[in-house]
């Protein structure tokens, strides 16, 4: 089981002080947060990709490479890499290079992006977002598995005799997750390829996540990649912790009430009941998180959103300290009752030895 954090990369005004961090501060903060995540023992840090203000995360592999150079153990991932508006050839090259530089300490999560104008800025059409995700990934999948590719599709210039370089480290393409909140076809895509499926369930009710994950698991088995409970599942999560739940609620409420996504809508209490958001003591976050298994089964990766809504860097780092404190209990809880045939989270080393075992 991997436990980590994921970020959108937004620049948001702190509603309690009115202060807005600069882009420079925010980019540096992402690095500091990633370093801290490794210090407290987390397994994964994932960065977003956006091409419009108020986001700074337009070039994830640049930031990931910098973080990788300053850390030793934590796995770098994305939340998400835009498969619709990014040329799959560039994804193959950028992430292929990152895989070598990090000695395989990376993977990526593909997403479509829901900002209308970003598509035309890159010569694409949001109404064809799903088709773009399907075709572009089909090409990316081949570029990492076939040395020479002849290819023709609807959305980019054809390729004749093209080799994406560098070739994958150890001949093993980076592991790919497909992220979606509510599109069954993305769960279907992940199942078809036997890739991971990440349900970012932080904005929607658990009942929805349960259906999406169940669909992915059923189709994963259908396509012959293993039993349904061996499918590779990741979940989003969201918390704000203080020693007492009263302190947590008091401090987080203004951030919640003004948050870009759900602010000025439901109350913190209603939203906490309707979605996985947990604002409370470390014990409450621990118990709620371990409850996710009740509706998705034993899974492989849990990522939390912690740097958002204008929370200052110092607060985010304190959240990481608190997460680090409950980490041993989280790990023990996730291990409890986990059947032996449920796979661990995918890593380069783990997938390499699995491949070699099959070959032997």
């Amino acid at each position: 089981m991997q436990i980590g954090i994921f970020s959108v990369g937004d620049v948001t005004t702190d509603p309690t002080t009115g202060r807005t961090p600069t882009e420079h501060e925010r980019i540096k903060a992402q690095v500091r947060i990633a370093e801290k995540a490794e210090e407290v023992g987390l397994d994964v840090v994932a960065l977003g990709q956006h091409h419009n203000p108020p986001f700074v995360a337009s070039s994830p592999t640049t930031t990931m490479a910098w973080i990788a150079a300053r850390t030793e153990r934590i796995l770098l991932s994305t939340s998400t890499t835009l498969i619709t508006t990014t040329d799959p050839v560039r994804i193959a090259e950028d992430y292929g290079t990152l895989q070598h530089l990090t000695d395989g300490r990376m993977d990526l999560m593909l997403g479509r992006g829901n900002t209308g104008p970003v598509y035309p800025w890159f010569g694409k059409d949001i109404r064809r977002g799903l088709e773009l995700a399907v075709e572009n990934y089909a090409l990316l999948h081949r570029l990492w598995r076939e040395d020479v590719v002849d290819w023709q599709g609807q959305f980019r210039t054809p390729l004749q005799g093209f080799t994406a370089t560098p070739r994958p480290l150890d001949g093993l393409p980076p592991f790919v997750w497909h992220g979606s909140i509510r599109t069954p076809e993305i769960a279907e895509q992940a199942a078809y390829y036997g890739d991971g499926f990440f349900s970012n369930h932080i904005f929607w009710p658990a009942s929805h996540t349960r259906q999406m994950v169940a669909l992915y698991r059923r189709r994963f088995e259908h396509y012959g990649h293993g039993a349904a409970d061996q499918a590779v599942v990741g979940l989003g999560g969201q918390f704000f912790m203080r020693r007492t739940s009263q302190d947590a609620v008091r401090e987080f409420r203004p951030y919640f009430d003004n948050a870009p996504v759900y602010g000025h809508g439901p109350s913190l209490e209603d939203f906490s009941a309707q979605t996985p958001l947990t604002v409370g003591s470390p014990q409450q976050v621990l118990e709620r998180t371990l409850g996710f298994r009740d509706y998705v089964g034993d899974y492989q990766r849990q990522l939390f959103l912690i740097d958002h809504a204008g929370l200052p860097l110092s607060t985010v780092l304190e959240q990481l300290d608190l997460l680090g404190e409950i980490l041993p209990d989280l790990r023990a809880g996730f291990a409890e009752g986990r059947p032996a045939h449920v796979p661990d989270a995918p890593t380069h080393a783990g997938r390499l030895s699995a491949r070699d075992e099959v070959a032997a």
Partner: protein
Amino acid sequence: MTRSLVLVSAGLGVPSSTTALAERLGVAAAEALRGAGDQVEVTHVELRPLAHALADRMLTGFATGDLADALRAVSRADALVVATPVFTASYSGLFKTFVDALDPDALVGTPVLVAATAGSARHSLVLDHALRPLFAYLRAVVVPTGVFAASEDFGAGATDGVDALGSRVTRAARELAALVAGLPTRRAPLHAVPDDDGAGTRNGPEEVDDLPEPVPFEQLLHPR
């Protein structure tokens, strides 16, 4: 066959003439449907108590609780009666917000009786220039007779060759029942998903939606 008749009223007052009109249409429509040999189950969705939940739904993208139940009931109705007050030359914002919260395909083929209320008869064309296009966009089947009631209609008889409210209500209800007759019942969810784990029903009150089955991937990969 049991038909589900769902009334939606966007009246804000308590009591509300819009709600009163919806109820009157509901009684007439239920009677007309029973006349066709069906049993009728009537659900009345009043939007006023759902106003906060609708604002939250716009901001979060998902519906919960009573609002989720109401959206589900409307999506599965065999026949709909919708009634709105006229606000600033059109249906009310609350009414439109509820319609916006429906899945765009939720009302395809559903017979709908449109109704509106206002202080004076000068607003009556709102039925035809606002409500009909809205439900045409959703590909619902709108009953030929819409029912508009101004305040004065609640005390008027048939005069000068103009129908009284009562006869318009009866005619519209019969037209609604005629459209429903011959259609299969829509009680079953449009996209039935088999229960995978056997734990409870898939469509409990906490459900946001019924997940449609995905298009098989080979079909996505190689369209046509």
